[in-house]
């Protein structure tokens, strides 16, 4: 399932070398389209590029756990979005209700989310690993509904937000534009979490046994690996990353009960685009979708200005972009950008 960065890059290089002229032309056209937008609107472009990166990182944080659990246990955990949402609400509880510093929330909330995740795994999911995959989807869907009702009951349905720490509530100058320091901080924290997960899976004995379990669970168990324990541990890990993502997202734009379903669907889109079973794919696809969503508006306004045709500037497209990307990827490359053949087919 997980592959190393060098393997991924080597594959990318090999693919580029083997591209047909048509694809090269399409790639060149994309570069030109983006370059024109960058030259005509540098400030807006960089703003949105960073916005897209931040959003993409959040998507990666949710998709990573989803992809890990899907690869390991063959279950699409629909409740993963609810865990992400809980991260944001726990952070609100720590910062706004208890008056503790943001750093405490960043440390405590993900662990609390992880514990909720373990509870979900032990009480519900553990009983249905041998069933059809749809059963897991249905059960976690019911769990999402319950968790959303809990959030509605405890914190109310109105959107909430909390204060950022003073250090991060400033702006950093990037030459052409000013960027909120917190957004850069988000990118740093997400990149660090992704790197840690990545190292855990590729460089440790624990990760080795987990990967072995994905390839052949029967044989791995035969060799004396306690797989159920690793399943629970991976579920905890997935929930913690989603929780970190939730804390960051909650601090940036606030929270509401609708974010659970929205983000689990987007995360699944990311997994589909990246290719199920590939962690590298999830990371690449998350950033790709985040950037596509944010840059598409800049590109459209820039081209509308350059050509003078205002009809190019279609509004309200942002929400649709992830699904368009998915549609194109599915039509061109049905198993995703870096997906393995035969996985979940």
């Amino acid at each position: 399932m997980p592959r190393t960065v060098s393997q991924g890059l080597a594959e990318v290089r090999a693919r580029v070398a083997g591209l047909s002229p048509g694809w090269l032309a399409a790639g060149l056209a994309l570069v030109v389209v983006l370059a024109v937008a960058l030259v005509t609107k540098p400030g807006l472009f960089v703003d949105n590029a960073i916005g897209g990166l931040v959003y993409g990182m959040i998507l990666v944080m949710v998709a990573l756990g989803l992809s890990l659990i899907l690869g390991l246990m063959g279950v699409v955990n629909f409740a993963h979005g609810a865990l992400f949402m809980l991260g944001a609400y726990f952070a609100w509880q720590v910062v706004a209700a208890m008056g503790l510093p943001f750093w405490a929330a960043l440390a405590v909330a993900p662990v609390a989310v992880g514990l909720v995740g373990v509870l979900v795994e032990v009480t519900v999911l553990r009983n249905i690993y041998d069933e059809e995959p749809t059963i897991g989807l249905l059960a976690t869907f019911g769990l999402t509904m319950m968790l959303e009702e809990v959030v509605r009951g405890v914190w109310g349905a109105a959107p909430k937000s909390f204060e950022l720490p003073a250090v991060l509530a400033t702006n950093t100058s990037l030459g052409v534009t000013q960027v909120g320091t917190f957004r850069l901080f988000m990118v740093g924290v997400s990149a660090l979490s992704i790197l840690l997960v990545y190292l855990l899976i590729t460089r440790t004995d624990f990760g080795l046994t987990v990967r072995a379990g994905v390839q052949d669970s029967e044989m791995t168990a035969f060799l004396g690996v306690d797989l159920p324990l690793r399943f629970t541990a991976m579920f905890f890990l997935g929930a913690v990353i989603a929780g970190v993502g939730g804390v960051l997202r909650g601090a940036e734009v606030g929270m509401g009960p609708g974010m659970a379903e929205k983000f689990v669907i987007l995360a699944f889109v990311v997994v589909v685009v990246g290719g199920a079973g590939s962690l590298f794919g999830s990371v690449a696809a998350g950033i790709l979708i985040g950037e596509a969503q944010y840059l598409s508006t800049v590109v459209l306004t820039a081209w509308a200005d350059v050509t003078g045709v205002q009809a190019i500037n279609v509004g309200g497209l942002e929400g649709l972009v992830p699904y368009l990307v998915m549609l194109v990827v599915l039509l061109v490359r049905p198993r995703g950008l870096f997906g393995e053949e035969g996985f979940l087919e």
Partner: protein
Amino acid sequence: MSDLRTLLGVGEDHPLYRYRIPVGLLVLVVGLRPVVAHEWFAGYGQLATSMLIWMVFVASFNLLFGYTGLLSFGHAMFLGIGMYVVAIGVSVFALPWLVAAVAGVLVAGTVGYAIGRIIAGKGEIYFAMLTLAFAQAAYFVVNADPYGLTGGSSGLTQGTLPTWIETYRGQKRVVLAGMQGEWYWLVALVFLVTMLALWQVVRSPFGRTLMAVRDNRQLAKSIGIDTDRYQTAAFTLSTMFAAVAGALMEINSQGASLETFAINTSGDTVLMAVLGGVNYFFGPITGVFVWLFAEDYLTSFETLHLPLAEFSTVSVDLSGLLNYWAFALGALFVLVVLVSPKDGIWGFVRGLTERVAARLREVTR
């Protein structure tokens, strides 16, 4: 039901047994409104009309999930397409309702076929999540109000009713060619026709093939069934039935609302079907009845008087708690999925009657 059948002395070939589903549907249509309108239940008859429409819709979903084994998490999209095409056709293009309804069914079928071609044969989870993603995309499109057609988040209400519907104090009447009739009976007629069509589909060789695909895709493939094609066909067919329900719902709720395209509507559909029991023809019908009834009953029900309303000694205020009835329903749903995901309430009732019948037979022997 074999025990019950032998107890009643009805043979395998007896017409009552062979046609138990049409008979059951007829009994349902006649009996539903008096039961629902009774003061112990909802107390008003309109709920029965909504129930029939929802039953058509959830049954169309079950053609996909229960009979073909494809879990669609975006089925409300096709209900919405049916609603919006009819609403746009009637209000903007001034088409007769019937023409608009046929157009709605065709549009839904075309969209369904296109999506089915892309995602059929992708594995169950993929299918479920991709339908969800397409539904979400449809939500964005409708919300963006393209060409001013869909009305964005406020939906369509102006001029969406056909001329032959008269509304008086919330009651709808059908006035057609000098004849008057109740809206309920028109819905009931469409309900019977579509449900019988679904029944015919399910028991036809086509339907049996779908079940073969559901039960064992590999085996079905190896005996020469083009499984992807059958899945696409089932998906297309079920989207068209869903659009029929949408066309009826357009009249019933006087227009089209964006809410139909929301994930919650698709989610509710899955919940209703699974709660009712996806293995049975009457499963979705049971699910819709229980769900809509619970929703109506629990949200209007505030104080629990014990032992009885007239002779209350203890009154418990439940209004605060019942706002969160979806939590209990979610818990019940998880329980049903864990214990027996295909049987649901209808399966439970069936099992119960069978056991009682077996017991009775022992006693009477």
